[in-house]
């Protein structure tokens, strides 16, 4: 996207993003022309007022929870700029302190420098969006005028100040903010970072003024972006001011985050790979490093009560983790009012991969995958975290066979409970196929065992490729569990009647377990034994992750081995999202086919078998005559159609 287009993005991201691309671009160009005309008529007061509003709008949204370097830099730079002029809060004290006491820094010199250079010059433009996008001026609410009039005097004062420097404020260019803020000069130690150049530990630059390249936590990505941003400045239509102060020299070690102002997108979306209540997940490529990443775009438009607490919880938890089998959060990104979580890209998820018709797993592969899963889960459980959404589509795999547990949207840390207290969590967690019986019976005082049931289901899935208990709602799910595992007895689950919903769902019959006859031949001997222990009805008797890792299954031959070779030969990427989409397409094709056949036969009755238009079910009679691929067959069988 060119700089020109970017600067004229419509004000509301979500609405505009739904428009068709062609119209959108045309409209953007039109907007740009309109804005340019408008700009000529605007005086600096309007500009100032809009800045104030936009700033307050942005800062009220941010909540200050995010830690992404991009976001942090934006926030800090805007807050520090406003603090000088509008008396708003500056950077948190602790950051200044931390940076000031860095070894080797000439504190005194910088302090003096600050006094000599410091001016009360405020930013002369509205702040940019976090991604550097400049939005057009939205319609002004009437009530706002009073608020802004207070500042007009200050603007007049400022104009006088600037007059001595022969800068015409009205004719100031309206380009990216960093260009304009070059009016400011470095001040004292904590203010040594020029606004727009140095945020809270942030850094940015334009043109030939290039500071030493940073290295560090954000690594090659940030460094490369840093390097590239010079190109983006060329495309900007803004002429930088001549008056330019000299940036203080910073050591590499003093740069903690890099503020990036680029005209182009750093992450270019490739395709959508997932969707949930939280929002959408895209596969994207980092245009600088050419590495693939996953962008999890948080859905904020449907949130009435501000930034979702579940997302905050997810970020908080993700920051705690450092394990090869748990997904790591690379960074956070704010762009066009959307918030993205950026993860390493994983080529497949377990559900998607298992639907691959040519995937033939061997015992050693399954063992390797399951061992990684258990190790990741053990790590989480040791950290007192319950995942609460263990399922195939949340278990990701890369091409080398490395497995990672992802999606911590429902995860939580366990409370420390004392005698007489209860943890009291919600039982509306875990996708229903992987939900353990105690949650289906209303338990709210649960623990790590709920995750173990899910991995038990996944162990079976690794062998059978289908989930063992596929219910549609709670009662159906419990029925499927009891049908296979048997109804609970007084011996194996004596205190089941203490569960809140047991009275409503007490089995009226004594059903024996069919687990052995169903799975003992499909699973290896030790795998079957382990599955039985993981799928114990009574949560207090269920295996823990540590116990599972000590099981004979992982000790006996064949030893676990990664399925690298198989994965490398697999074409494409297999995620549940895409395979589901494929299935839907295939089902639609089948339905169309069925409809055509039905028409040809001049409308046979339902009993003769075609399609029930209400349920979209394909009646069994037609199925054998239609060529179906494996995944469709599995889908229909899992839905009880075939």
């Amino acid at each position, binding site marked *: 996207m060119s700089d020109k287009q970017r600067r004229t993005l419509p004000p509301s991201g979500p609405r505009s993003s739904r428009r068709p691309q062609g119209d959108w671009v045309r409209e953007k160009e039109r907007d740009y022309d309109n804005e340019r005309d408008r700009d000529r008529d605007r005086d600096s007061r309007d500009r100032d007022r809009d800045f104030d509003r936009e700033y307050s709008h942005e800062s009220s949204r941010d909540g200050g929870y995010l830690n992404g370097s991009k976001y942090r830099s934006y926030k800090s730079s805007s807050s520090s700029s406003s603090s000088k002029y509008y008396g708003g809060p500056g950077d948190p004290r602790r950051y200044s302190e931390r940076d000031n006491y860095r070894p080797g820094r000439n504190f005194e010199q910088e302090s003096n420098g600050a006094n000599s250079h410091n001016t009360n010059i405020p930013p002369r433009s509205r702040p940019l969006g976090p991604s550097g996008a400049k939005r057009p001026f939205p319609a002004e609410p009437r009530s706002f005028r009073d608020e802004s009039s207070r500042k007009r005097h200050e603007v007049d004062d400022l104009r006088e100040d600037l007059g001595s420097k022969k800068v015409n404020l009205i004719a100031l260019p309206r380009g990216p903010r960093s260009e304009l803020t070059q009016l400011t000069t470095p001040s004292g130690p904590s203010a040594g970072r020029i606004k727009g150049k140095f945020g809270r530990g942030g850094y940015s630059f334009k043109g030939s003024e290039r500071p030493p390249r940073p290295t560090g*936590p954000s690594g090659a990505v940030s460094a490369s972006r840093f390097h590239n941003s010079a190109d983006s400045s060329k495309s900007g239509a803004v002429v930088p001011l001549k008056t330019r102060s000299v940036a203080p020299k910073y050591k590499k070690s003093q740069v903690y985050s890099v503020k990036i102002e680029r005209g182009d997108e750093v992450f270019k979306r490739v395709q959508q790979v997932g969707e949930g209540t939280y929002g959408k997940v895209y596969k994207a490529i980092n245009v600088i490093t050419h590495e693939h990443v996953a962008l999890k775009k948080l859905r904020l438009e449907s949130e009435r009560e501000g930034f979702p607490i579940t997302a905050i919880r997810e970020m908080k938890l993700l920051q*705690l983790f450092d394990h090869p089998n748990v997904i790591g959060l690379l960074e956070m990104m704010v762009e066009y009012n959307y918030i993205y979580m950026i993860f390493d890209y994983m080529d497949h998820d377990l559900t998607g991969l298992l639907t691959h018709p040519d995937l033939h797993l061997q015992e050693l592969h399954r063992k390797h995958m399951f061992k990684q899963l258990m190790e990741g889960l053990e790590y989480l459980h040791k950290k*007192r975290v319950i995942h609460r959404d263990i399922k195939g589509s949340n278990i990701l795999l890369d091409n080398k066979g490395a497995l990672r547990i992802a999606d911590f949207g429902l995860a939580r840390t366990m409370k420390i409970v004392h005698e007489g207290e209860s943890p009291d969590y919600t039982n509306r967690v875990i996708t229903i196929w992987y939900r353990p019986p105690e949650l289906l019976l209303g338990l709210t005082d649960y623990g790590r065992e709920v995750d173990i049931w899910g991995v038990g289901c996944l162990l079976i899935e690794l062998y059978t490729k289908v989930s063992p208990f596929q219910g549609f709602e709670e009662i159906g799910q419990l029925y499927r569990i009891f049908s296979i595992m048997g109804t609970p007895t*007084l011996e194996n689950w004596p205190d089941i009647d203490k569960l809140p919903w047991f009275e409503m769902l007490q089995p009226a019959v004594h*059903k*024996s377990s069919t687990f052995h006859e169903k799975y003992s031949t499909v699973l290896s001997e030790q795998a079957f034994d382990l599955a039985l222990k993981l799928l114990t009805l009574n949560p207090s008797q269920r295996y823990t992750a540590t116990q599972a890792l000590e099981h004979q299954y992982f000790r006996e031959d064949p030893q676990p081995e990664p399925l690298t070779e198989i994965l490398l030969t697999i074409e494409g990427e297999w995620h549940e999202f895409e395979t589901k989409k494929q299935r839907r397409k295939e089902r639609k094709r089948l339905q169309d086919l069925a409809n055509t056949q039905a028409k040809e036969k001049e409308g046979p009755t339902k009993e003769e078998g075609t399609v029930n238009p209400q349920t979209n079910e394909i009646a069994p009679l037609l199925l054998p005559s239609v060529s179906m691929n494996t995944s469709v067959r599995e889908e229909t069988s899992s839905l009880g159609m075939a």
Partner: protein
Amino acid sequence: MFESLVQDNFCQSSAQFSQILASLTPSLQSLMTAARFALKNAANEDYLFPHFPQTNVQELMLKYETQNELLTAEDLTNIENDVPFSEQPPTPSPQDTEDPLISAWKILVWKKRQSRYERIRIQKHSDVITGEIQEEEMFNLDDKQLLSRQQITMRMESDRESHKRSKETLWIVNRPHEPNYVTEEEFAHNYWNKVQKMSSEEYSSLLDVLGDLNKLVRSSFKDNIA
């Protein structure tokens, strides 16, 4: 004179409260209004907060919780003989002076006893089903006297919803109007004494978590020498 005034006040608030209750709708606002009024006039309305015979309620609650004492010797004999549970639920007559709370607890205990009785009886005497069985048969969903599938699902949902709502006000602390600041006593009561000492296991787990976090942070600093 004073007594008559008190009496008047009592009658007035009582009548007012009856009116509120009569016009009570299931909306939250209406319920809140009623609750607020009741709390405000608690002193005037003895009938609102009667003194229950605590011991009786506690006994019943204990009975409900402990499974062993629930079934009588007669029940156990009947279970052995495969006799279906036949005892009728306790129904308090309008003339009965027993407190409604106690009656309610008695019904609950009876229900629990029946449930446990039938559970043991089914396990001991009914044939073990090895083949396929329908959902309706497993949970007795076709029994008109019991809850239907839809009713069960609705109850589950409303239970979850009320559970969620109950947590929305957990953070609320009842503060005295005066003084305006938190006194030492209040702090001790509301906060300090609510935090208990950690067990050694909890303490070590906390240290582990903190240690890991420290390592993570240390490794993320670029000027870290280690």
